């Protein structure tokens, strides 16, 4: 019976050939390291977000009068609702961490260099989309924390003269955060952003498979030796993708789950401070309210730079440079250790980001 089904599928899809050519015979560089698995972990993290998000969507009420209570009901009454919500909340933060680590790994290993500029840019756009996911999702529980943190973040664009207020008003659906903002953010979170992210993931993966995975400049000799004068698919004599590298990816996914459930078990309130458990009150501004940790650095920078237009301009330049980085750093040398100036600049930027984040927190 099983053989019959298998043969039936084989005849129509050619599954054996697909597995052989795309998994077993597909080879990755010998010197590939564990950081190469982070992209796969990020995709799995997104799938978890989508699945848990779907579950939450069944019970969540996207109206300002009922949103907070519906989230409390998910945590209290819905069977296993707490688990799905905690996975969604912890997962969103872990996903950002995984993406940042993935980005740093690509940056340090020079994997963005020709011909992979579009792979980097699509990855950068994915990170921006994930930040939009976080921003829009953060408001949905309609708590004091989400309300006022969103107020801060949606006020940031007002630093732009003339268009700033317009942008902020478009985001909020008015001068202040209200039920209209909740509706907009909800629509953005569940209807607009998912297809955008899925498209970007598809494009990113297509580019990786089309060009071939980049080799690491560290470890054993680099196999990618020929200059890129025309299109070619990078072929390696390294280890098979399946099962060798695939098992490493699965291992890292298991580690991701362990970290996620560790937080849920032992630090369930780590990403949910007290203000997140109080219903939003537009008439009462809590003291010491701040945006989420990943927005703290730009928030603090905006507070520090005396001219706000300059502050926001610097940030726009940072984002532009970040997205177009492969077109700016066109040198072929991939090993960052042999480029001390670039290494120094990147480390300074990282240190600045860390300091601003900590400063913004306290």
């Amino acid at each position: 019976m099983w053989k019959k089904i298998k043969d039936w599928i084989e005849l129509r899809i050619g599954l054996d050939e697909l597995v052989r050519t795309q998994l077993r015979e597909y080879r990755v560089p010998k010197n590939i390291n564990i950081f190469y698995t982070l992209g796969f972990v990020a995709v799995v993290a997104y799938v978890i977000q989508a699945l848990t998000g779907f579950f939450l969507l069944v019970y969540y009420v996207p109206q300002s009068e009922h949103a907070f209570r519906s989230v409390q009901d998910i945590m209290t009454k819905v069977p296993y609702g707490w688990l799905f919500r905690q996975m969604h909340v912890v997962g969103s933060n872990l996903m950002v961490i995984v993406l940042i680590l993935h980005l740093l790994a690509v940056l340090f290993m020079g994997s963005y260099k020709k011909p992979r500029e579009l792979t980097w840019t699509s990855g950068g756009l994915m990170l921006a989309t994930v930040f939009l996911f976080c921003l829009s999702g953060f408001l949905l529980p309609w708590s004091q924390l989400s309300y006022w943190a969103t107020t801060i973040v949606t006020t940031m664009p007002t630093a732009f003269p003339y268009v700033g207020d317009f942008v902020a008003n478009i985001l909020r659906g008015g001068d202040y955060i209200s039920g209209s903002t909740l509706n907009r953010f909800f629509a953005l979170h569940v209807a607009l952003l998912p297809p955008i992210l899925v498209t970007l993931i598809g494009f990113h993966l297509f580019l990786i498979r089309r060009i071939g995975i980049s080799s690491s400049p560290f470890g054993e000799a680099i196999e990618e030796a020929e200059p890129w004068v025309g299109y070619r698919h990078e072929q390696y004599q390294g280890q098979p993708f399946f099962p060798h590298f695939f098992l490493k990816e699965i291992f890292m996914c298991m580690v991701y789950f362990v970290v996620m459930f560790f937080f849920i078990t032992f630090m369930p309130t780590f990403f949910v401070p007290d203000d997140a458990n109080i219903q939003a009150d537009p008439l009462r501004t809590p003291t010491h309210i701040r945006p989420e940790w990943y927005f703290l650095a730009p928030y603090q920078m905006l507070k520090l730079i005396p001219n706000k237009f300059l502050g926001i301009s610097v940030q726009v330049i940072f984002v532009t440079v970040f997205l177009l980085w492969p077109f700016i750093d066109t040198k072929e040398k991939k090993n960052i250790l042999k480029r001390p100036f670039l290494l120094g600049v990147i480390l300074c930027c990282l240190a600045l980001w860390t300091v601003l984040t900590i400063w913004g927190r306290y």
Partner: protein
Amino acid sequence: MRYLLSLFIVLSLAAVTMAGYRETFEREFLSKPWAGGPIVEKSACIECHTSDIMKPAFRAIPDEWQGSWHALNGVSCNDCHGGDPKDASMSMSHVRGFVGKPKYEGVPAYCGKCHIGILKNYLESGHGKALKATKKGPNCVTCHGSHGIQRATIDIINEQLCTKCHSYERAKVMKQALFLTEKKMGEIEKDLKALKSEGIFTGDDEKTLFSTQAEFRALFHTVDVSLVKDRTDEFTKRLEGIEKNVQKTFAELKVRKNFSAFLTLIFAGLAVVVAMLSATYKD
């Protein structure tokens, strides 16, 4: 790179030319409490009471109020004193309901506008009767203070305060009668806060606790020990009902914790298995 540098210079120059925008932004962005500034209650009452024209004793009032239980719960000057805090010229107008400072014997009615149940019991109590008869008996402010009022606890019954008017022995008996119920209410309140911080809906139990607390504390204002003792069982039963729900929820949280710990172990085990399997596939 040079294009970006040029862009940066152009934007910087534009920023300098837009110096006027800076003030607007700082007013709109940085002056907000969430941008790090303090919360400033904009009211004619506070502006006037903090100005130099005010007597020093009156100038301390806004600070006292800022740290009070009333301020924490959004009860502002005009909620007690009337008037219009948004309009300086009409802030002390009787047309806008300004009543100012009440007379000593008028304080209970003044506070009783909100604390209705307490007023009724107080008026029937020895305290209330003494005030009515002599106009010198204790009123609300005698025990609770006024502008800097804090959340009432059982500690308000103390030797220093009570012996201002009578011996402490009578008050001590009352404190003993209240002690266990007050202790239980404090414990439940702490537990509900803990549950709330885990995202649990505690609204129904909070409401029951609030009404029980309010009724019990209103009952105390009769200063009738035997009445408090007689009705303590009734309050204890209500509190036990809440406590039962709380304990049930804590038990549920424990189950959840065990379940997620189990999942942690499962995935840790799977990670080990996959790592071992992966090791067998080396080249």
